[in-house]
């Protein structure tokens, strides 16, 4: 039988297995923590209670999902857009320090609006320039919060 990846059943089973493995690992990780200190439960006790429960429930979910979950697809064309958008958001995060918060925000806005099908240059430019500008005025000029300025350092100061 061929394993269908884009299936609610497969992905729920995978989620169950992943959560069970994570619970087991975290349970194992508590071995270095004391179970009791000065007559009170130590920092290991609560995590052990929680992860034993999640381990059991995750295994139960994985087994149950394999039997009863539907085989309907989870992802669609829209999911691809969402994933592409996540990649843009990761690049946005990575570029904050080096490019500067406001410049990278404008670039992210323009790129993601383009990705999502917006083709009006007026709208693209308006939002990509206007949003960071308003954010700069609110957060930097009014709230005096420091943001990384990156490439705009010569213009805005470090």
């Amino acid at each position: 039988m061929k394993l269908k990846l884009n299936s609610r059943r497969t992905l729920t089973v995978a989620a169950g297995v992943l959560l069970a493995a994570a619970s087991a690992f975290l349970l194992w990780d508590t071995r270095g923590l004391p179970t009791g200190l000065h007559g009170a439960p130590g920092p290991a006790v609560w995590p052990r209670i929680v992860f034993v429960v999640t381990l059991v429930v995750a295994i139960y979910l994985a087994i149950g999902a394999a039997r009863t979950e539907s085989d309907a697809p989870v992802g669609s064309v829209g999911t691809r857009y969402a994933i592409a958008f996540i990649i843009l958001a990761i690049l946005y995060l990575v570029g904050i320090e080096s490019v500067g918060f406001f410049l990278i925000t404008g670039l992210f806005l323009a790129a993601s609006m383009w990705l999502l099908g917006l083709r009006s240059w007026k709208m693209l430019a308006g939002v990509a320039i206007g949003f960071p500008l308003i954010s700069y005025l609110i957060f930097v000029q009014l709230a005096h919060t420091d943001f990384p300025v990156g490439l705009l350092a010569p213009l805005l100061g470090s």
Partner: protein
Amino acid sequence: MFEHLLAGFAGAVIPHNLLFMVVGVAIGIFGGAMPGVAASTIIALLLPFTFGMPADTSLILLTASYVGAEYGGSISAIFINTPGTPGAIMTTLDGYQMTKRGFPVKALCASLVPSTIGGLVGNIALILIAVPLANFALRFGPSEYFALGVFGLSIVATLTGDDWRKGVLAAGIGLFLVMIGTDQMTGYPRFTFGRGELLGGVSLVPMLIGFLALPEVLLMIEEIGEKTALPQKLSHAFPTWQEWKATIPATIRGSLIGIAMGTIPGHGSTISSIIAYNEERRASKHPEKFGTGVIEGVAAPEAANNAVVGGSLIPTLTLGIPGSGSMAVLLGALTLHGLEPGPGLFQHNADVIFNLFASQFLANIALLVIGLIGMTWWVRVIEVPRAVLAPCIVALCFIGAYSVSGNLWDVGTVLVCGIIGYGMRKLNFPIAPAVLALILGNIAEYNYRRMLLVSGGDLLEPLMHPITAIFLVLAVITFVWPIYRHWKTVRRQSSAA
């Protein structure tokens, strides 16, 4: 109490509090009207902006936006048959039918006025119940707080939708995230994996923003191709006197249901509006007309979902137990401002609390005024392209998370929690239990340990305290009952098939 309340009104009408209250209501309506943007998302997005504000102003802004969002959700429900917030789900049934018949303004009035009344009644209940309950809760010790925390966590079963296991695992994710960092009682680092950045724990605000706002945006992107078409040829007629009269009992019943449901953790605006709609249909002389554009069918759920605001503030403020994602964010705001949720809040920060009570009252009046002024204007919000809205929300999340502590790690937390939340939503794992666990995890754990420290390691003795025992029994019932009911339904369905 009356003197405190008068002082609260004096505090609420200070220009900056008044301004942020009005701004909060307007942002709430604006955000609530956008399909896919829940009230909790709006509050989570606003949270970082409140960082530099005084605590009372911050709470006023957040709760006012909650009031606005609960009404705002009905705008898209009425115009495009899509609830802006989950609480407006029942408004689509008759509200959209009224629009199809050409009377959207009647439907909007039938939503706005009962929403205002429901909100006001909910606020009165909040004032009357919260203070005595907080005084009572002052007697609570570690065992009672532990039981309360467990009771709060037990409501995951009511928030799980069709599979309780997913709710428990979602809560487990939240509990794990709050365990990360230095143990408050012993100083031992837990689950930091050698990373110094994790010693202080994972910041609450970025986690809340990540779990609540980002998954909504990603799901919004998935539906980006769908266009929202507004109906043409609309009448601007207001309801007739006969129609207004019909909304009065519906508003009263809806408000009472909203308050009752709001006070029960886990029973938010969605459940209350469903119950209010069904009760209204049951009480009606013409139940068969429900779903065809009956004005009571709009009034009852809308009164209920706004009354929930006051109702849900009762356990949140007095006991520190949030009943929903929105309330969890509000508790996050309290802790962000160094205030400890629970009965102590009424003792040490009574001014903040009574300012909030008074401003809630004014926020509902502002809702009526702003709602009436913008009655036909708000609908334009629905036409904002999602291709613009989604990236702007993400940028707002990042800027907001960074502005709280000036730490890039927090922006990463938003993204990681957002991606986890999106995966959870795609596989029907509910987000609310994870968010509740972020707030309740520490309450349950540290009071459990303190309880055993006080009792010298004896587990049974503290659990036999009457209030502790009652909360634990309630926790068991709250957790087991929905699972049992679901199991029974599945069994009935499978035997019928």
